[in-house]
Each structure stands twice: as structure tokens, then as C-alpha cells.
């Protein structure tokens, strides 16, 4: 990080928006895999979640966001009795991905609200910078 130039408002907003996009992609992946079944509890899809952390730039005093990683949740797969399913095990059970569609929708809504807030703040800041530039 030592060689990087100090963070500007644009860089800050860009990182924040990227982080929110990672979060939204994770929620979209979970939604896409909702209801998928698999043959065993281990191979069942587990919801993924982005983990955010603060990234303080000491040169400018601005705090941006970094995505520390994308982790899998420890939720247990749901067992469903379905003997006719081709993936069913010897007991006639399949394992359904433990995705809570409502929670994923809320997650997407929150991510998009925070993304919009950043865009709004950035456009205000940009307008003020332009006003300062055009001052004669």
C-alpha cells in the first residue's frame, strides 16, 4: 500500500460501490441456487456471504471498504423425502440448499440502497468540485 497515491473521493466511492456489488452478486448467486437438490448433505449448496472490512487510508484520512473474503454459511441442508428423485440416497432422501429467499431479497435491497447512497454522495461532491474549478 505504501506506493499508492492518497485516496480521493472518487476512489473511495469506487471501492464502496465495488464492495456493494460483490455483496449483491453473492445474494444473486444464493437466489439462483435456491431450491437446488443434491445427493448428500456435504455436496448441497451453502449460501455465500461477502465479509466487509474498513480500509483506512492514513494519508488522506478517508476510510474505504474492502471485501475481506466471501465465506460460506454453516447452515445445514434441508432433508427432503423424495424416493422418486434420481439423486435420492438409500433412505429415499435428497438434500435441498438452505437458502432463505426472503433474507436474500432483503440483502439485495440493502446493498442497492447503500450503492445508491454512494452514487448520490459522489454526484454532490463532484458538482461542488466542478463549481470550485469553474470559479473565476
Amino acid at each position, binding site marked *: 500500500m505504501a506506493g499508492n497515491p492518497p485516496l480521493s473521493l472518487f476512489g*473511495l466511492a469506487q471501492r464502496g460501490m465495488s464492495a456493494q456489488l460483490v455483496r449483491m452478486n453473492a445474494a444473486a448467486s444464493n437466489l439462483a441456487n435456491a431450491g437446488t437438490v443434491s445427493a448428500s448433505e456435504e455436496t448441497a449448496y451453502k449460501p455465500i456471504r461477502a465479509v466487509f472490512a*474498513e480500509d483506512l487510508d492514513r494519508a488522506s*484520512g478517508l476510510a474505504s471498504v474492502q471485501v475481506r473474503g466471501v465465506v460460506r454459511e454453516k447452515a445445514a441442508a434441508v432433508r427432503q423425502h423424495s424416493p422418486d428423485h434420481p439423486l435420492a440416497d438409500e433412505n429415499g432422501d435428497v438434500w435441498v440448499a438452505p437458502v432463505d429467499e426472503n433474507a436474500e431479497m432483503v440483502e439485495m435491497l440493502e446493498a442497492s440502497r*447503500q450503492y445508491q447512497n454512494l452514487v448520490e454522495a459522489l454526484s454532490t461532491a463532484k458538482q461542488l468540485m466542478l463549481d470550485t474549478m469553474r*470559479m473565476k
Partner: protein
Amino acid sequence: MWDTYDMPDLFGINGKALELRSQRMGILASNIANAGTPGYKAKDIDFGAALKAASSGTDVSAAADRSTLYRTPVMPSLDGNTVELQNEQLAFSENAVGYATTLQFIRSRVDTVTRALKGD
């Protein structure tokens, strides 16, 4: 910044105020960017105190650093994040209006000097 040159008080308090407004905008934007970061503590500059310190001779960025405080949340959240978006948006827009006003004062000062130089 200006008082190191030949024109000590051309913009008066407004030069420092504009710099402080700009610094505060960065801090508030950081808060908005970290609205979803667990454990992030929202910060803000006490603008009045910072301006007082800056106009009594302290360096502007030092004055801003010294007047930067953590925000007290109205309702603390479980993940330790103290950003409350409505408050941050309100502070951001208040600061933007303050910035625009200060800029207008500076602009009219420049206009006055320009008119005096042209003599018409």
C-alpha cells in the same frame, strides 16, 4: 495557505472554512461507504471547534484532526457499526450547502477585486 503570501486576509475566514468543509465531506463520504462494514465507527468533524482552532492559527488539517469525534449512535446495532444513514445523509447535504455558500462568498470577493482592478 493564503496568509503565507502577500494577501493575508483576501478571503478572510472563508479559505479555511472551504478547506474544512472539503475535509468533512471526505469523512462523511467514508461513513456512507462503510454503512455495511461490521464494527465501523462513524466519525464527524465538529465544524465550529475546527474553524475556531484554524482561525486562531492552527494548521487546517491539524485542526480538523483534533476536532474529529466519533458519532454517538441513536440506536446501537448488533454488529458494532455506528453508521446511521439518515444522519449521515443529512450531515452530508448540510455540509454541501455550507460548502456552496462559502464558495459563493469567495467568488463575490474575487468579483469585487476584479471589478476594482478593471476600474469600471
